[in-house]
């Protein structure tokens, strides 16, 4: 139903000329053609945990390629309707078009902005523009920071209030809604549809500086899709299912970020902490530091990111439970070297090398890891992308 509505709306909105300044309609788009390969066939590299399979030693376009189209209709000076659809590789191994956003935005005063509908969530800074490659410096958002965030949108509402502070600006935002996603796990999917999500953030902007602190949570509506495995391998499937239950358990997401974007410099420093309220998934901490310096059309950059998870004490639990918990373990760092070349208006070419170095047990960020749950922990990822907007 969503898809039909999307196609109909886009067809309707596609008729007026694009981006006319005096038209209440606008049609804009973005996209990335990306190719990447890794140095190992032991595990499959994914952009984030919403992808069911990833890339190996052969050049592959599935991780980073995307095409998005957005229509907006300025209904009145205070009311806007926005619809965005995109095509990319997603949880069910298809490239079917998806409705990313569909919402009404109401701005009763210059301070307030209220939105209602299917919205992007900003669990972390920039999390709601993760697929707009043209908008950021790197080939993809640093994985150690964003892998754990397979959620993109909610059905709900948000409210933002902006107020000047000195000659800077403070923005407070809160959201509430229900998740509408699924997360692929092994050959199954974790249904998180209907899981309530809420959160709030505080931003401060001044000149080239932007600082942000945020909190968000999700209360999962379902257990992990592990009933079959427990039935087959657990000495007491009912007890194991109860121990590893995620239903109605809350996961908390905390983040801090600082961005400096002035003159030739672009610097980002972000930290996050994810606390799992269940036994099945390990809590984690991650972060990254990224710095780029523009020299005319080319911006070389260097980055360093990390993620470490820690489990509760599960001593004495059955082997199968410990194995399932170990599947959510991560302990690795990534060094990033790359360059962005803005060779033409609204077009950018990027090349990047990610050097991932981790513990043999760091398997959560990958797909199709070895049955032993161990791997070399060393992975180099080579990527090139062409990003565009129109």
């Amino acid at each position, binding site marked *: 139903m969503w898809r039909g509505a999307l196609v109909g709306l886009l067809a309707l909105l596609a008729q007026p000329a694009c981006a006319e300044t005096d038209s209440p309609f606008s049609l804009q788009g973005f996209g990335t053609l990306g190719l990447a390969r890794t140095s190992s066939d032991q595990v499959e590299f994914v952009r984030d945990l919403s992808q069911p399979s990833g890339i190996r030693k052969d050049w592959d376009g599935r991780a980073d390629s995307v095409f998005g189209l957005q229509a907006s209709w300025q209904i009145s000076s205070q009311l806007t309707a926005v619809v965005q659809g995109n095509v990319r590789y997603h949880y069910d191994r298809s490239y079917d078009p998806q409705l990313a*956003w569909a919402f009404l935005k109401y701005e009763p005063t210059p301070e307030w902005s209220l939105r209602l509908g299917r919205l992007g969530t900003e669990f972390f800074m920039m999390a709601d*523009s993760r697929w707009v490659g043209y908008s950021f410096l790197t080939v993809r958002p640093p994985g150690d920071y964003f892998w754990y965030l397979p959620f993109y949108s909610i059905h709900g509402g948000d409210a933002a209030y902006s107020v000047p502070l000195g*000659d800077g600006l403070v923005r407070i935002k809160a959201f509430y809604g229900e998740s509408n996603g699924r997360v692929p796990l092994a050959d199954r999917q974790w249904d998180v549809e209907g899981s309530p999500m809420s959160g709030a953030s505080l931003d401060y902007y001044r000149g080239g500086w932007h600082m942000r602190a945020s909190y968000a949570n999700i209360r999962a509506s379902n257990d992990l899709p592990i009933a079959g495995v427990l039935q087959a391998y657990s000495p007491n499937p009912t007890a194991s299912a109860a121990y590893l239950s995620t239903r109605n358990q809350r996961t908390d997401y905390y983040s801090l970020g600082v961005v400096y*974007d002035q003159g030739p410099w672009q610097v980002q420093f972000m930290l996050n902490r994810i606390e799992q309220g269940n036994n099945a998934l390990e809590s984690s901490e991650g972060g990254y530091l990224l710095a780029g310096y523009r020299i005319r059309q080319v911006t070389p950059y260097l980055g360093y990111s990390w993620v470490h998870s820690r489990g509760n004490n599960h001593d004495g639990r059955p082997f199968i439970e410990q194995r399932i918990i170990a599947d959510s373990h991560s302990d690795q760092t990534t060094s990033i070297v790359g360059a962005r070349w803005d060779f033409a*208006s609204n077009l950018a070419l990027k090349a990047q090398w990610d050097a991932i170095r981790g513990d043999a047990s760091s398997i959560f960020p990958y797909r199709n890891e070895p049955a032993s749950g161990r791997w070399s922990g060393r992975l180099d990822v080579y990527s090139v992308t062409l990003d565009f907007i129109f």
Partner: protein
Amino acid sequence: MPTRRLFLLGISFWLLAQPGAALRAELAVVVNARCGVAAMTRNEVINVFFGRSRQFFNSVEAQPVDMLDSHPDRARFYYKLLGKDLSEVNAYWSRQVFSGRSQPPVKVGNSEEVLKWVASHPGGIGFVEASRADARVRVVLELAN
């Protein structure tokens, strides 16, 4: 002697390497003469032109007007304001637009249209070469070379 020639050569290259902007006139940020704003700081202008703030300090709603990429004043403005290249400004707006947060300001093609927009909107704010600012508008910030 060769040292001096080398020096002069170096200087010429350096000058050629500078954005053309540095050799030209000042840019002025102008507002509607009746909006009640007399001066703005650089950071306040950044807030308005990057869509962070939609009002002036006196609560009048700000209605910014930008210029098309093809007009040289646009590149000069963002370079002088924040040291940013147009590709970076456009990248910034792609994040705002495609996250569903906000749309960029209206764009016009020449300075006369900027002045007309600013004069005809109560909260109008734009940028023109300083020498073009006339009685319809008030200069709130000059961006020196």
